[in-house]
């Protein structure tokens, strides 16, 4: 395992971004009494009969505004999306259905749930990370797809 090609600055950026994410999660629960879980916030909008839709829309508008504000202040960092259309569709469907059945994703379980000390969220996080590790191993190293 060779870690030299990752500069220290990527860890600092990761940690700083993490602090912001944690701060946002703390603010949402302290001010709104709500969990900052993106799949839950999105899912609630797609569920007929749910009444509390406005705060969800407002949260999403904030999330959507983020890249615009980041772009005019710092310029957006370059990203690489390797997956082709078919992979994006399959992956998107799995992420959409999976996170709703699991009642959470990286934010709801991984950040908020672990911060609450929820065993359920720790189990969910270990499960999706393990599934991710195995999937990347299979696609990248065994099957080459």
């Amino acid at each position, binding site marked *: 395992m060779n870690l030299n090609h*990752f500069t220290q600055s*990527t860890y600092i*950026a*990761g940690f700083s*971004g*993490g602090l*912001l*994410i*944690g*701060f*946002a*999660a*703390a603010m949402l*629960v302290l*001010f*709104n*009494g709500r969990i900052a879980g993106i799949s839950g916030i*999105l*899912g609630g909008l797609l569920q007929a009969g749910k009444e509390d839709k406005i705060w*969800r829309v407002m*949260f*999403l*508008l*904030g*999330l*959507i*505004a*983020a*890249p615009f504000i980041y772009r005019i202040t710092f310029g957006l960092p370059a*990203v690489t999306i390797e*997956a082709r259309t078919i*992979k*994006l569709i*399959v*992956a*998107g*469907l*799995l*992420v*959409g*259905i*999976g996170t*709703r059945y*699991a*009642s959470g*994703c*990286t*934010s709801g379980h991984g*950040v*908020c749930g*672990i911060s*609450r000390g929820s065993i359920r969220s720790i189990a969910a996080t270990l*499960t*999706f990370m393990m*599934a*991710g*590790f*195995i999937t*990347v*191993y299979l696609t990248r190293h065994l099957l080459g797809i």
Partner: protein
Amino acid sequence: MLNISAFFVGLIFGLGLIVSGMTNPAKIIGFLDLAGAWDPSLAFVMGGAILIGSGGFALAKKRRRSLLGAPMQLPTATNLDKRLLLGSTAFGVGWGIAGFCPGPAVVSAAAGQPKAWIFVAAMLSGMALYSIIERRGK
């Protein structure tokens, strides 16, 4: 007030995702690629988030109502059931295939990445499908 606070929280959350590198799928796959050139920085993202988050939730747990007077709606489920474990497995497989989880996908779509639009459209379809299946089952 609750809606204004939700907007700013969403904004800070989104900025955090961009700063941390979570919106770059190549970086996520780099973290998930233990057998390749493993990039551990996602662990730093989670560490930073949980460090602040745990303080926030410790304070929140002591309260019945939020600082703005809304009811505290903390999850109450504790069971490790099939839905949780199979759902998380499906999510992890999708995460590993594309390198996107829901938050970063939405931010990337807003940043104008056409591939993120495709992913988000499929993800929302998956979520809608869940709602339809759940409604039928009742």
